[in-house]
């Protein structure tokens, strides 16, 4: 199993009446709700948590890209990955990922991922999301009906830039480059493993199978509701006649661990409600620009998760019983994860352990319990696929270790460092 500790980096200061007074957490969220000084501290706390997860032995630490979004403060996950590269040492940096249709030219992604691959000594897993309609169409202006064509062209360019060993010309519709020759280039061969976040489109299943990419369902509605979608993926894998390694698939799950089930509710319910009620409050008009989804996908009935009924009236019990969240004692959580892993047939788990406005210390408590009392019991599931390395990174053995800071030079911040008014 591969467990990646994932942080969406939500803004923790959305007011209690956020739903009532705002139409959306995404795209046109109120600038007055933002405070850059508070964000300075929020970033520091979130990076501390990701680094903590590395120390506790999670297989990966994960981050992603969102724009103009109150639950995702990372327009550029690559910047976060760059800082994590120096202060983590074991875990894979999982950047899930860069919305490749949004970069102009898209070789920017090839270059930055190559830099991260090298910085981390091959401790790097990348991802190529199409991006949500909110990000891709409404924030970044990509024409919905051309998004997938633009994505496919960007993908071709990036893979060629990583794998062709001579300069080449690229004459695309959206990108024309006379001399493609990125330098530095990737460390892992033929390139870092790629995970594709998907939401049920058949074309994405095929894209993953064709390219040996892992298909990741990043849902917030939990494992019980994911069954039909993942069954569709595995049926396509079977129909295409390729092996059914569980590492071909990943799944994101919100999880809270405490000493007992009761303690979990007492400690965490407030933060779960914050996330499901405020962070997922997306204006339905932003959820799915016409043309963003293919006709084939719409016809399968796979509707956007942001168009689903809201969570406003859900109790803790509803969230737990519905599988939206997995929460409870280590034993409860272990049992449910075993069920999740087997029923969805997934080898990669993205653990949403920091949720909403959860305080750092509480998140560390939950994280430590998972690392020490849950994860060891789950790590050896899928023993028959233990040697399948196709979907995970291959770090080099001799990785550079950042030199320790010189205590004598590292003077503490003093008021003198604050510019005079």
């Amino acid at each position, binding site marked *: 199993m591969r467990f990646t500790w994932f942080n969406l980096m939500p803004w923790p200061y959305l007011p209690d009446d956020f739903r009532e007074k705002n139409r959306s957490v995404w795209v046109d969220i109120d600038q007055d709700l933002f405070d850059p000084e508070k964000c300075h501290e929020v970033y520091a706390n979130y990076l501390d948590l990701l680094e903590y997860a590395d120390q506790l032995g999670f297989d990966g630490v994960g981050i992603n890209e969102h724009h103009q979004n109150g639950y995702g403060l990372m327009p550029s996950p690559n910047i976060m990955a760059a800082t994590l590269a120096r202060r983590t040492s074991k875990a894979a940096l999982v950047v899930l990922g860069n919305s490749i249709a949004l970069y102009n030219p898209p070789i920017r992604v090839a270059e930055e991922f190559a830099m991260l691959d090298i910085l981390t000594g091959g401790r790097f897993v990348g991802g190529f999301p199409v991006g949500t309609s909110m990000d891709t169409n*409404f924030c970044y202006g990509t*024409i919905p009906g*051309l998004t997938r064509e633009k994505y496919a062209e960007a993908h071709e360019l990036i893979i060629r830039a990583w794998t062709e060993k001579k300069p080449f010309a690229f004459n695309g*519709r959206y990108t024309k480059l006379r001399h493609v020759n990125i330098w530095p280039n990737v460390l892992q061969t033929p390139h870092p493993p790629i995970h594709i976040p998907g939401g049920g489109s058949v074309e994405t299943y095929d894209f993953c199978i064709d390219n040996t990419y892992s298909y990741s369902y990043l849902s917030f509605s939990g494992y019980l509701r994911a069954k039909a979608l993942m069954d569709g993926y595995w049926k396509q894998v079977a129909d295409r006649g390729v092996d059914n390694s569980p590492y071909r698939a990943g799944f994101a799950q919100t999880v809270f661990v405490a000493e007992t089930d009761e303690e979990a509710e007492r400690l965490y319910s407030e933060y779960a409600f914050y996330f499901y009620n405020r962070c997922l409050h997306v204006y339905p008009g932003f959820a799915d*620009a016409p*043309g963003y989804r293919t006709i084939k996908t719409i016809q399968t009935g796979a509707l956007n998760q942001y168009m689903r009924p809201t969570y406003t009236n859900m109790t803790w019990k509803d969230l737990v019983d519905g599988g939206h969240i997995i929460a409870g004692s280590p034993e409860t959580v272990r049992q449910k994860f075993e069920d999740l892993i087997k029923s969805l047939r997934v080898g990669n788990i993205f653990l949403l352990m920091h949720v909403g406005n959860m305080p750092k210390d509480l998140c560390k408590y939950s994280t430590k319990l998972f690392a020490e009392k849950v994860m060891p019991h789950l790590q050896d599931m899928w023993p028959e696929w233990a040697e399948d390395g196709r979907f995970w990174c291959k770090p080099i053995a001799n990785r550079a270790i950042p030199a320790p800071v010189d205590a004598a030079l590292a003077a503490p911040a003093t008021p003198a460092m604050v510019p005079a008014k």
Partner: protein
Amino acid sequence: MITARKIETRAATVNVLEGGEGPDLLFLHSAGGITADNPFLQALAKSYHVYAPQLPGYGDSGDSDNIHDMLEVTLHTFDVLEKLGLNKPLLLGHSLGGMIAAEMAAIAPNDIDRMALICPAGLWLDDHPVPDIFTLLPREFPEYMFHDADAGRAMMAAGQGGNMNDPAFLIPFLVNNARQLGMAGKFLFPIPERGLKERAYRIKARTLLIWGASDKLFPAPYAHAWKDTIAGAELVIIPEAGHMVPVEKMDATLAATALKPSPSRTRGRGPGGGSAPP
């Protein structure tokens, strides 16, 4: 009596709605599309031989991966004209259709003699940003499209009524929406402006602009901006009408569409070889 037939262009199979007696008129529909039972189309057919090709992605026209941008849809529409064997018909376009008509007149100024543009898309005024139609929910459309939103709501409900929670209704609705607005988005998303302002100086066609006085999608400043953009254009503002002026004030729109000869406005080139409309 409107009938339908299919023609082929390089880009797509095109369903052409056709009917009526009189001078040739090519009608280019809005992003909302057009069907054979459209009352405005039927009324036009009383005075003209009307051709109303459905854009690729609309109605019974096929989809097209060959149309990406304004130039390609403009050339596609010339291909439609060619296939229909039309020579300088009166060009009538509503909203997106008006944007395409104006582009045709700018690209091939000697091929388009007369056009009527009903509240066309295609200009952008920073001081009057148009609503983002791609974020509107179905129930919000009437407010922006009609002078009388309640009447508009009743009109739209006739074609769109259904339970959004019922997949049997919702999925075909979303498919239709994705086909139509997926295509329209190539010209209108995220801002319905593709540089026509820079090319409009080439337009030679006698141009009539028809505007609903209470158009909330492209409000009055757009009417005047268009008049300033196309030299010699006449502007007719129809009271108590919104963006859907052809259905809200059908008779007034038809009367305006007649493009009566107006020698004082003729710009020296004359109306060209087409027969004069009534």
